[in-house]
């Protein structure tokens, strides 16, 4: 087993994948904790799926708009989509975060309906834009199901940069983020800028979602974002410890998932999610056993 791990590590794509998994787990553990305690899993799902519109836009710009503008230029010749889809996803997810934030703040009812609609519109827009773009769409599936094995050095740098940004913002606004998560009304009375902080949190979720899309894919982003924090939350009752624990768990899940996917030649994103899911079910079982024991005493 050790031999096969060493063998796997000789491939640069494997090293990149491990590094990406570990780096993404940091942002994921911190932001995911807020998603779980503030109960905004659905909004996060909306942001993730709306981001698909941005991927479509990226494709469209790269394969149809740029060749049109710079006919015969370099861009047209490159078969790979480059960072256009990623940039599109960042743009769209941030946009979705702001819109959903405003909707949640402004409308009393039916916020979930509107979020569901935006979720679907983002997705549909992405598909249509990809239909409209020229050329062969080779790695579309990679955004839906992740492609951690294809992470390049430049993307690792982007992920690292986003990590630093997320950690810095959460550290700077921690007391406000905690306050709006625990008791929005009280935070308002204390003159905390609740609207701005809420939208900032949703933007942090948007950036995390874009990173996670690379690792486990759009469809499973929510699982990766919420499972580690949900598990740790069963056993720890302090926000910062939940974050730390979620980061560690996220790292363990990605590393174990990657190894399983390598050893049995399975899809990496799905392997990571299955490992997380099994761990979550196990933690539920452990918790209910503990509660039964407490009840007996």
């Amino acid at each position, binding site marked *: 087993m050790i031999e096969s791990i060493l063998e796997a590590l000789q491939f640069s794509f494997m090293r990149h994948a491990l590094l990406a998994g570990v780096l993404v787990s940091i942002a994921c553990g911190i932001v995911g904790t807020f998603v779980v305690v503030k109960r905004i899993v659905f909004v996060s799902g909306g942001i993730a799926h709306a981001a698909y519109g941005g991927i479509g836009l990226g494709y469209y710009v790269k394969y149809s708009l740029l060749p049109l503008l710079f006919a015969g230029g370099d861009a047209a010749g490159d078969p790979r989509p480059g960072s256009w889809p990623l940039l599109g996803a960042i743009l769209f997810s941030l946009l979705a975060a702001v819109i959903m934030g405003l909707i949640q703040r402004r409308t009393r009812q039916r916020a979930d309906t509107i979020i569901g609609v935006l979720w679907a519109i983002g997705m549909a827009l992405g598909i249509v834009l990809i239909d409209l773009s020229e050329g062969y769409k080779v790695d579309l599936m990679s955004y839906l199901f992740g492609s951690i094995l294809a992470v390049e050095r430049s993307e690792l740098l982007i992920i690292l940069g986003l990590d630093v940004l997320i950690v810095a913002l959460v550290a700077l*606004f921690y007391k406000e983020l*905690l306050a709006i998560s*625990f008791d929005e009304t*009280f935070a308002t*009375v*204390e003159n905390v800028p609740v609207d701005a902080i809420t939208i900032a949190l949703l933007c942090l979720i948007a950036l995390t979602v874009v990173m996670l899309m690379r690792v486990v894919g759009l469809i499973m982003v929510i699982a990766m974002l919420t499972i580690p924090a949900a598990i740790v939350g069963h056993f720890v009752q302090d926000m910062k*410890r939940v974050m730390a624990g979620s980061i560690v768990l996220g790292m363990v899940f990605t590393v174990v998932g990657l190894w399983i996917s390598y050893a049995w030649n399975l899809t990496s994103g799905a392997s990571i999610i299955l490992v997380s899911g099994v761990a979550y079910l196990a933690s539920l079982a452990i918790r209910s056993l503990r509660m039964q024991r407490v009840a007996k005493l």
Partner: protein
Amino acid sequence: MKDWTTPESARWLLESKTERREVIAVRHVWAGYDHEQVLEDVSLSAYEGDFVGLIGPNGGGKTTLLRVLLGLLPPTRGEVRVLGRPVKEGRRAIGYVPQVIAFDRDFPISVWDVVRMGRLGHRGLLKRYTAEDNAVVAEALRQAELFDLRHRPIGALSGGQRQRAYIARALATQPQILLLDEPTSSVDPQVSGNIYELLRKLNDRVTILLVSHDMSAISSYVKTVGCLNRRLFYHGGQQLTAEMLELAYQCPIDLIAHGVPHRVFATHTHDEPQEDGA
């Protein structure tokens, strides 16, 4: 317990009323949600040192009035001032104790961290809590007799302890006014008594305004009472009158005063008006 029935205290009450500062001023306020008025022409004056209890049926606008006072709901008509200033400034002097109902027991936070949120208004964005903040939080916890439980997760507290934690959080804001929404709705009668005793002690320093549907508890501890059911019936008096109750509840009320001031028991012959029917 101070006896408010003696001529002395009555005179004190009268005199001080003219000298004391008006800390809450509500003038002809109308407020509500989505075209439905919940408060109609409500006027209220509370003075420094007051301990005002407002009772009223569910849906009578108790929480709405607090939301207006806290600047969470702008009135459609009328004016509200706190310490002579607009509510969004004046609310800095208010310690707010919400009703303990919709509460996430699993939220990973300690009593200490909850109470420290009372310091948010004193420490703006990008500033860390200071040693002074921690001292204020510790003092607030001691007053609420929760200091020993400060490391507990908030979800592990009993109903009464949680209520005291929210009171401690409000005290940590170093308020001049305490606003409480149904402070005893989730606790049993004995604990309820403890909470009112705590409030009476605090009333030496802060003005208190609380709303509740629990008439008997309110009327035995507060200095002045009023009835709120869309309209407010409050004259700065110590006792609920049958007239006030009838006006507020719009149903006949058997009023029995057992010779004890502030004690009022009322029996309803009809159900209380419901949320949407009222």
